[in-house]
């Protein structure tokens, strides 16, 4: 049994990870810490675990690992504390709002000799793992180009407050696909061009649409839409899609397109009932296995850093109006 604590319920994914901790046989959901005591207490009560208001006391409780699901800007301080306390860490994506914080997070865990995972559940979506297998087996031949999306509904709250998130949709919804493409191809990103802006929602100080043009090693060209463009009336939260164009043909993957159309007069609109796998549960399961086996999680802190290098370059491009180089930090 691994004793796992959750640090902050600021990110809605915390609830999915908490559900996983409750249901996984080898996990002991040991407690909650949150800098918002009311939110933390409510979550602790929901899952029947103790809430600890003092971070040091929480981290001194003999935890094997923590899941950090705070606002992006707070990741680094929490990781540094948790690593120093010897806890293994699964950190929500983006691992940090900038490469400076991301590199510091990686360094802190390396120094403390604790494993560090980035919460990239896409690595556990069956549709994507199957495409990865297809690519590895040479089913598509050489990969030449891709066009991708990670669209979502507007998340509101701190996500659209730059002081807490560090950036908007371009930051929130680029890293998953960036990680999947690195994982699929084994290649790194070299350049990015980005057009973005606050074009949909009034009263926020971040972008809510990003259109990215990326290049990877070997000249692979990729476009990606990172957005909060799905309206509240959309049947689900959003999507992860990829069109992969290769030597032998084209693969289209719509990662969450495993749904039943539901029409309920009482709901007032059509909805989708999802019947696919539970990637969040698989992600937490891998984290716990990593602790038991003393290995890094499937998507490491360095994978998280590499994705942040892409978003940082995207924002630099949007600002300069030119293609930006993706600077790969030595680690």
């Amino acid at each position: 049994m691994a004793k796992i604590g959750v640090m902050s319920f600021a990110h809605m994914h915390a609830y999915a990870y908490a559900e996983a901790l409750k249901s996984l046989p080898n996990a002991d959901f040991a407690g909650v810490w949150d800098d918002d005591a009311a939110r933390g207490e409510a979550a602790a009560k929901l899952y029947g675990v103790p809430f600890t208001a003092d971070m040091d006391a929480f981290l001194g409780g003999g935890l094997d690992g923590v899941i950090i699901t705070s606002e992006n800007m707070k990741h680094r301080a929490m990781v540094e504390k948790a690593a120093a306390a010897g806890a293994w860490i699964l950190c929500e994506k983006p691992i940090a709002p900038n490469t400076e914080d991301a590199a510091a997070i990686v360094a802190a865990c390396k120094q403390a000799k604790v494993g560090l995972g980035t919460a990239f559940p896409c690595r556990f979506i069956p549709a994507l793992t199957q495409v990865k297998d297809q690519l590895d087996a040479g089913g598509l031949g050489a990969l030449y180009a891709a066009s991708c999306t990670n669209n979502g509904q507007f998340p509101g709250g701190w996500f659209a407050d730059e002081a807490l998130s560090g950036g908007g949709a371009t930051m929130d919804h680029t890293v998953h696909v960036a990680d999947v493409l690195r994982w699929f191809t084994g290649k790194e990103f070299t350049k990015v061009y980005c057009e973005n802006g606050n074009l949909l929602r009034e009263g926020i100080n971040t972008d809510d649409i990003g259109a990215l043009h990326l290049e990877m090693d070997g000249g692979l060209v990729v476009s990606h839409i990172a957005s909060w463009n799905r309206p509240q009336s959309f049947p689900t939260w959003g999507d992860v899609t990829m069109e992969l164009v290769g030597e032998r043909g084209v693969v289209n993957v719509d990662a969450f397109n495993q749904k039943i159309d539901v029409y309920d007069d009482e709901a007032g609109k059509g909805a989708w009932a999802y019947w696919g796998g539970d990637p969040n549960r698989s992600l937490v399961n891998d984290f716990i296995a990593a602790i038991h086996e003393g290995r890094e999680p499937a998507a490491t802190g360095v994978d998280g850093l590499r994705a942040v290098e892409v978003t940082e370059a995207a924002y630099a491009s949007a600002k300069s109006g030119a293609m930006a180089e993706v600077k790969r930090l030595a680690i």
Partner: protein
Amino acid sequence: MNVAIIGCGGMGRMHAQMAANSGFAIKVCADLNQAKAAELARDFGAEATTDCQGVCGRAEVAAVAINTPTPTHLEFIKLAAQHGKHIFCEKPLARTEQECKEAIAAARDAGVKLFTGHVVRYFQEFETIKQQMDAGVVGKPGFAKTFRGGISPAGEGNWFRDFEKSGGVIFDCLIHDFDWIRYAFGDVERVFSQTMRRSEPEVMEYALVTLRMKSGVIAHVIGSWAHPSGFAVKAEVCGSKGMLHFDSNDTSIQTNLRETPGEGPGVIVPGSPVDVSPYQLEWEDFKNWLEGATPRVSPQDALEAVRIAEAALKSAETGAPVTL
């Protein structure tokens, strides 16, 4: 009114039919390929010829429909204009912005109408998206995305696959989307583009283009001549309170035909099973223009679409955005 069809391939046949439906008489069918000219002429009770230039000067012809490879458009437009013929020209209007200017000047100087077949403006699905948008359904629009493409077309003498002639998927295919996006969202501020273009294992091209409109709207345009089969069109518009989405893969008729043995794939013309074909609507618009009405597509619109396409080609080559 008598029409000469210049270029008797797939689009030539399409336009001959539409012209006939709109009350024009197909007088002569011209193509360098005698057999193609003869076949189309037979079906429409017209005369066949391989003298494509000559038909532009025929006294009995009042209008020409140009359906030839893009680099030849300007020559036929100039010839037809010189002889006072009205012109229906398949898109793109010409191969460069400069050629478009010459074509427009030739038509203007001769006092003839120069219509360009930007047929997407007449497709009911695209018009419905525009109507919904104009009615405020999405609120303030901020983002649009389109996809257009499928198998790489060949055409007479493989001209579509000759980049210098056709300009590839960006110039020949995405010009539809560039025109429609400009029609729906106004003028373009700047263009960024990437292309994947290969001749091995077969001729293929995949293009990724982002347009930043003067209004701030971001439009992402994807074009494929890299699919192993088929043809599809998708469109999406997102705004402050809603979204519109269309996918031709999810429509009322799905037909998947085997390739004819021994022949390369032709241009696949997408079908909208509607009461009146969009190709018919553009011919009606052309006809009404000849009778004094204002058409939906102006010569300047056709030139602007070419400017956007040229900017996209330049951006793909330089790796830098191109400001219009």
